[in-house]
């Protein structure tokens, strides 16, 4: 039997009824009296200077209440993502965006915004704005953009000895002597892989509603993943004290996957800027096309792996290089290459390693965070190189991995220890689930449909440290009726944190979950928290909530101890009843529970939280627990196995089955964790097989709707087997580690290896679309 009441239990989500009945409010649902609707004029050119802009006709249109361009917009440089405020002190933060700039740097870049009484009027007004552009030379490939003759995207920024348009620090991870390691290797695999631009495609597009009161206080309903840092960014853009700005999710956010770690595109500042001008509430909702072309994508680019091993398969050296396309702006251009390298280097015990990686500006839509944050890109290259190494050595790729994977206590490049790993058990269970022993025996000679098995392993983080600033605060206040209110600044972007965080609080307090409320996703009434990104919410915000709950619990027990006449350490709270440990309930008449004063008189030995809290309340006391923590970090682990079928006549790749075995530490809510695993698996299938944004010769995005950006549907989903292998990580709340992103780190790599196993052809470029596969197999 579990030692816990709530931790480790698949309790139903608290937002379930709201979300299944249509009652739940999202930002796009907010409707305020007098509210105006914003629309944005966007650049049709990938790189141009605005020579002139005339908004006079638009302003005259009845119903138009405000127009904003680079002429009257705020002039403060910012970074729309959280590095604006979460860049670690050792790095220089990159501020390269204006709300409206004289230069436009990608198709879809903001030129002007209009607030009007309806979306239709706002759209009509946009058509009346006259803009004269001077076309500037544009560049779309990061390698091209680094050349001396390439156009400069942000003059004065990013001219380095290594190349042009490198906006942020180049991440260099030296680890022993890679040249020596390569020299000592018997076999070396060297390969470059090309990664596509892909998109989060969260279901709710970027959105915000801003309202300004007569005293200048601003409320912004927002789809952000990080309300507190977003408030800080807005404060700086508009020179308004952050203390006068409230940012909240209302309370639901229609997905994130990294696309709004910071601002939601520019929805918040556009709505806020227009609301300040019009003195009326303004709603800004991105159309799906705007979401595609004008909010952060995943980084595309090139990852090169040079892997050296001894004849017996012992890895000796890994030399890794990443050139990542950050597009027009450097939202996470500094941090992401770091994660790409560090997480790839952390998979295996390799005595000599080196990483060199950076972002490059181009005239593409800016790239930022997307679930996995650089890690899937690195993993795809590394895990394919490992399979190529196995083939060259004549070894089973699973055995080669088992021989080399990182073990707890092994030295690695990260500044925190590899504390726990159940990866070997994940591999064992995953291999059994997929039927790995069938590998190599799946196809009859002459088959037109070829089956193959592939695998990949990987790890990720449980918060953003040491790549970004990372800390958490939480309050737990005990109400006079004995119930508890928890306050945490993280939103619930769909990952179930508003349930699992309450499980942590109720478990720590010893209270029924029904008696624990949670205030979240709102800068008003919650202390500063980073927010929901980096697989951190349950692990890091959960640690702060556990600390706050433990603090409140201690105060409760200290208070009770004086009446029980025993040390507080010998008291416990279980199911909302305070009693000495390991003793039966008291002997009072009636309910079996006692009044605190009766306990003092020795008439019984248990009281309810309600009795105790009210007892304290009428004596002018409230129990307020505070949690202020800086999280450690811990590696979750993932072993992914895929079986595919490749139709050699059409090039169609079908995933037959996918098994994802995860070490997530302790699963606070296994049903929620499974949901994370399954969701990541299907996003991985899309990454491997169908999702891609390409640019035409005019610099326009060719995929900007779900009609031609090919997302997996229910009909594309194979059998998915999610396996949770629990470990107990001492650094996480109740042993938990991060679980949100690791699920998307390995599936594409496993599928690529399975396709190679099926066909004998190694794809150096994804997605493996029918067209690409057909061409490769028929050339």
């Amino acid at each position, binding site marked *: 039997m579990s030692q816990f009441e709530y931790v480790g239990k698949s309790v139903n989500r608290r937002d379930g009824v709201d979300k299944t009945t249509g009652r739940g409010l999202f930002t796009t649902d907010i409707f305020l009296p007098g509210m105006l609707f914003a629309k944005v004029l966007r650049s049709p050119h990938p790189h141009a200077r605005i020579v002139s802009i005339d908004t006079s006709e638009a302003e005259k249109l009845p119903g138009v209440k405000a127009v904003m361009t680079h002429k009257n917009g705020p002039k403060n440089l910012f970074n729309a993502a959280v590095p604006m405020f979460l860049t670690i002190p050792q790095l220089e933060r990159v501020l390269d965006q204006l709300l409206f700039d004289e230069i436009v740097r990608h198709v879809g870049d903001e030129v002007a915004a209009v607030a009007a009484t309806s979306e239709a009027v706002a759209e009509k007004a946009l058509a009346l704005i006259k803009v004269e552009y001077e076309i500037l030379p544009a560049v779309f490939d990061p390698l091209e953009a680094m050349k001396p003759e390439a156009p400069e995207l942000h003059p004065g920024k990013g001219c380095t000895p290594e190349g042009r348009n490198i906006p942020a620090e180049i991440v260099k991870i030296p680890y022993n002597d890679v040249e020596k390691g390569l020299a000592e290797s018997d076999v070396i695999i060297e390969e470059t892989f090309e990664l596509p631009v892909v998109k989060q495609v969260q*279901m709710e597009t970027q959105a915000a509603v801003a309202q300004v009161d007569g005293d200048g206080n601003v409320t912004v309903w927002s789809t952000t993943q990080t309300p507190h840092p977003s408030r800080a960014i807005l404060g700086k853009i508009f020179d308004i004290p952050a203390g006068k700005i409230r940012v909240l999710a209302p309370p639901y956010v229609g997905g994130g996957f990294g696309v709004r770690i910071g601002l939601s595109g520019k929805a918040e500042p556009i709505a806020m800027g227009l609301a300040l001008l019009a003195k009326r509430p303004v709603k800004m909702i991105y159309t799906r096309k705007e979401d595609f072309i004008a909010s952060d994508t995943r980084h595309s680019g090139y990852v090169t792996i040079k892997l050296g091993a001894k004849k017996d398969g012992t890895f000796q050296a890994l030399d890794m290089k990443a050139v990542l396309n950050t597009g027009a702006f450097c939202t996470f251009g500094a941090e992401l290459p770091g994660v790409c390298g560090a997480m790839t280097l952390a998979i295996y015990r390799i005595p000599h390693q080196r990483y060199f990686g950076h972002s490059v500006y181009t005239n593409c839509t800016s790239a930022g965070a997307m679930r996995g944050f650089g890690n899937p890109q690195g993993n795809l290259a590394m895990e394919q190189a490992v399979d190529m190494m196995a083939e060259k050595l004549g070894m089973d790729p699973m055995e080669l991995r088992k021989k080399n994977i990182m073990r707890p206590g092994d030295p690695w490049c990260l500044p925190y220890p590899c504390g726990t790993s159940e990866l070997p058990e994940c591999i064992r269970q995953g291999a059994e689930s997929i039927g790995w022993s069938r590998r190599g025996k799946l196809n009859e000679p002459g088959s037109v449909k070829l089956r193959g098995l592939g695998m990949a392993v990987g790890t990720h983080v449980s918060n953003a440290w040491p790549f970004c600033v990372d800390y958490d605060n939480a309050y737990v206040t005990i109400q006079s009726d004995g119930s508890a209110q928890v306050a945490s600044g993280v939103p619930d972007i769909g990952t179930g944190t508003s349930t699992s965080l309450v499980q942590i609080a109720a478990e720590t307090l010893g209270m029924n979950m029904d008696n624990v409320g949670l205030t979240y996703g709102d800068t008003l009434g919650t202390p500063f928290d980073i927010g929901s990104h980096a697989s951190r919410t349950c692990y890091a915000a959960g640690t702060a909530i556990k600390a706050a709950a433990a603090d409140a619990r201690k105060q409760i027990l200290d208070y009770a101890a004086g009446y029980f006449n025993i040390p507080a350490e010998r008291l416990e709270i279980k199911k909302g009843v305070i009693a000495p440990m390991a003793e039966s309930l008291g002997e009072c008449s009636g309910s079996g529970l006692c009044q605190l004063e009766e306990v003092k008189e020795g008439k019984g030995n248990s009281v309810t939280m309600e009795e105790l809290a009210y007892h304290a309340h009428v004596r002018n006391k409230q129990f307020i627990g505070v949690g202020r923590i800086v999280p450690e970090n811990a590696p979750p682990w993932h072993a992914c196995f895929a079986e595919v079928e490749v139709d050699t006549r059409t090039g169609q790749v079908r995933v037959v089955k996918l098994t994802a075995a995860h070490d997530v530490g302790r699963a606070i809510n296994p049903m929620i964790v499974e949901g994370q695993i399954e969701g990541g698996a299907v996003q991985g299938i899309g990454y491997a097989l169908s999702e891609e944004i390409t640019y035409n010769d005019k610099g326009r995005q060719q995929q900007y709707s779900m009609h031609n950006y090919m997302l997996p549907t229910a009909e594309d989903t194979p059998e998915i087997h999610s396996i949770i292998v629990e470990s107990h990580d001492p650094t996480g709340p109740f042993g938990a580690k991060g679980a949100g992103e690791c699920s998307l780190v390995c599936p594409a790599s496993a599928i690529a290896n399975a396709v190679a196993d099926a066909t004998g052809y190694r794809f150096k470029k994804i997605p493996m679309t029918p067209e690409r596969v057909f061409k490769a197999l028929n050339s």
Partner: protein
Amino acid sequence: MPNQIISFRLNGEVIEIAVSPAEMLLDVLREKMHLTGTKRGCGKGECGACTIIFNGKAMNACLIPAMRAQGADIQTIEGVEGEGGLHPLQQSFIDKGAVQCGFCTPGMIMSAKALLDKNKSPSKDQIREAVGGNICRCTGYVKIEEAVEDAARNLRANAVKGGDL
């Protein structure tokens, strides 16, 4: 063209509302009636977030001209919960963990309901086909499929209890 008054049955009640010929039913539901349970994910019939049941069929409200609602029988997510509580589909979505961000959920439930209203013993393929036009980016569809199967099972059990079968 001027606005016109149209009348249709919405979640069991006959209503009248003035609509413009240019409007889509989704705009009328969300912007005029503030029935925001029906979501807008793309506005082009590509994501299924705005699925409603229109004369017994699951349809994207963003593609239906509002004028076409004249005389129609329309159900939105707000009309699914009965007097006895949640519909079995809603309960199964919660019990099976089929809800994450929740933005696709109303449309997903409406597509599934249109199926189960007609067929309480759907095959896996029929379930997948029914929700095949509803994009979910969170769940990977696994638990959604399980939830629809579970709801179908519960509906069949209720029908046996109620003597309808």
